[in-house]
């Protein structure tokens, strides 16, 4: 088991290097440090000296990939690419344009993000699976057909609509919950309810359809026929056989997103004024703060790769056919 995990971790390294290369190309090659200096300094009459000074100040004064001035290994290491890569890999994201430590900011904002994302994830998982099982139990009936049509309709409405409609109905008209805001601890529950409900509801259409198709695929298999032939009730077939075997495809889709929950939801957080990583990113995008966006891109990729590794590990735990180290 341990060697297997190590192997998976090693597999992740080239991917991380690739991500790093893409981020670097995006942030430094499409827009060279000279361009950045010009748009940061703003004025039309920017002298080359000012640009050089800005680059030295930011630490961007080295060549991109190859440094001809250095000897030997220094040709590759004394470059902007190496310098930035090392910073990213050691999770040193530097300072934002507003001169705040990005790592500290991220640490601070992870909890509010999680307090929305985690409940949404768990509640959505439970509701979607139970609704899907219900529909599979009554498959082919009027309930199934009508629910599937409703599911398509729910899927076809923009999340923005659910958020706006939810805020207007529950906060503005009925005053059940505050319209936006955040507080930590038990106090904060009243702020969390609405975004969580909306998050669950807006995903219910696509979710139920997905789980239903997974269960339906299982239900046509031979082993289910055998189970029925043995005289098992439909409910026992469903919970004992179909749900268990449906877990595998479900794991592939679900486990991979778990680490990314830390990233929070961009629109949800900005609508509800939650000081999480989602709204952090949006603010950075609006302020064109490349440092933060770069950090978030890297962080998101790392979390996704962790998700991939977790998926592989969960496979070996749940599927006896997958052998370790194979």
């Amino acid at each position, binding site marked *: 088991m341990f060697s297997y995990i190590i192997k998976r971790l090693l597999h992740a390294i080239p*991917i991380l290097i690739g991500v790093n290369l893409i981020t670097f190309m995006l942030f430094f090659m499409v827009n060279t440090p000279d361009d950045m200096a010009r748009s940061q300094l703003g004025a039309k009459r920017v002298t080359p000296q000012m640009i050089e000074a800005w680059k030295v100040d930011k630490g961007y004064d080295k060549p991109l990939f190859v440094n001809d001035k250095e000897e030997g290994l220094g040709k590759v290491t004394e470059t902007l690419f190496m310098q930035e890569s090392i910073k990213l890999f050691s999770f040193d994201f530097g300072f934002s344009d507003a001169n705040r430590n990005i790592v500290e900011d991220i640490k601070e904002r992870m909890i509010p993000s999680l307090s929305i994302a985690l409940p949404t994830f768990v509640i959505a998982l439970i509701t979607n699976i139970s609704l899907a099982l219900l529909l599979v139990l009554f498959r082919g009936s009027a309930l199934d057909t009508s629910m599937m049509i409703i599911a398509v309709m729910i899927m076809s409405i923009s999340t923005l609509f659910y958020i*706006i409609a939810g805020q207007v109905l529950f906060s503005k008209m009925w005053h059940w919950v505050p319209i936006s805001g955040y507080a930590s601890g038990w106090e904060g529950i009243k702020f969390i309810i609405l975004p969580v409900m909306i998050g669950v509801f807006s995903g219910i259409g696509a979710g139920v359809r997905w789980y239903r198709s997974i269960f339906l695929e299982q239900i046509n298999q031979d082993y289910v026929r055998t189970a029925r032939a043995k005289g098992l009730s439909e409910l026992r077939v469903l919970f004992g056989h179909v749900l268990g075997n449906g877990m595998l495809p479900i794991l592939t889709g679900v486990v991979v997103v778990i680490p990314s929950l830390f990233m929070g939801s961009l*629109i949800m957080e900005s609508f509800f004024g939650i000081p999480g990583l989602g709204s952090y990113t949006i603010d950075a995008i609006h302020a064109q703060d490349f440092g933060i966006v770069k950090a*978030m891109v890297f962080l998101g990729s790392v979390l996704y790769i962790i998700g991939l590794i977790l998926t592989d590990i969960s496979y070996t735990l749940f599927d006896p056919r997958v052998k370790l180290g194979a």
Partner: protein
Amino acid sequence: MTVTFLWTDILVWLLIVALVAWGYVISHSLQVQRQWRAIFKSSIALVSSIVLLVYLVFALLDSVHFHKAKSSEIVSLLDMAFEHRIKETERTYSAPFASYEYTKSLIVKNGVSRQEYLPLKYVNDESVVKLSLLALSIGVGISFFVILLHIVWRKRKGWKRDIPWHTAYITFTLLVLVFTWLYFLSFNYHVLGTDKVGGDVLYQTLKSIRTGVLIGILTTLITLPLAIFLGVTAGFFRGWVDDVIQYLYTTLNSIPGVLLIAASVLLMQVMMDNNPQWFESTQERSDVRLLFLVIILGITSWTGLCRLLRAETLKISQVEFVTAAKAFGVGRFTIIRKHIIPNLMHIILISIVLDFSGLVLTEAVLSYIGIGVDPTMHSWGNMINQARLEMAREPMVWWSLFSAFVFMFVLVLAVNLFSDRIQTVLDPKNNA
């Protein structure tokens, strides 16, 4: 007045020509004919495809641009049809069909100042009934003419009855009636109200159709070649080619989509700001930005389809008929062209349609975040973004949001229903 082509116009018309040509070529195959007949046997699929056609017509009408003589203005056919509503802007908000402004304003009359609802400038209450009747009769006329043509065509083709054409006729007539009525009344009213600066909401909503539809279809134009080429190559040749391609899409996939788009759009913005000399007019600028957005969306969204195609190609290239073809000495590229690609068609088609609806919704979210289309461009996302703040007003200004959401919902719902039908018919799993 001379015809001008914006970049996206060229692409969208090329795509339409290619689609028509492709449709003509494959329509000779009996199997394809049978599949499409099976798809349209469901009235839901038929109705949604007609709705889609209407949206497409609006998008295409808005994709024929003219350079106005003696000015640098670029207008489309749709702009020309709505010229009366572009020029006649009110002062501020007004509700749908209203004759007065939505909020009271301070006026001074004979030295006394009062709060009063001001009348709208470009609203004419007279002869509404007559105008509606005229609109409806013209609508009925148009739809009868089209339906008659279609019936004649069916007669010549041998009068098959398996497709529920009457449902199609009813849908078509209703749609034509609604739009002619809206159009005729738009001369007298702001049918869907006006926004903060008095712009006509109906016009904005119709203009947004092009943005939504274009993002949906042009993105697939970028996605498809990438996904098909890389997916098939990886699945067919295996070995190190497969490893490299897998590495490529895992890496790209691991960067969160929205953030990758955000980063790319931000950089593009900086680049365009640094080079203002590239564009002659704001329209060209926003058009290029739309094109960039489409390319970025395409680059970030080919990975899913590629993975599916790779897996399917792996499976197909093990099947007997491919082994047989190999044994006969058929060239590898002939095998790919004749045996692999045709068997991937259903996956490609399903994913095109599914992606389309996703992209329309994504556009709204991206524009809301501020990394979507140009803020000067009409799009549902921009409409929602601007109207969001109006929800805080008392009483609420709901019509901009409402129109954007309804038009978006109808489009996405039609696409989703259509894709469901395609999936049921084409997916071999369902025919077992």
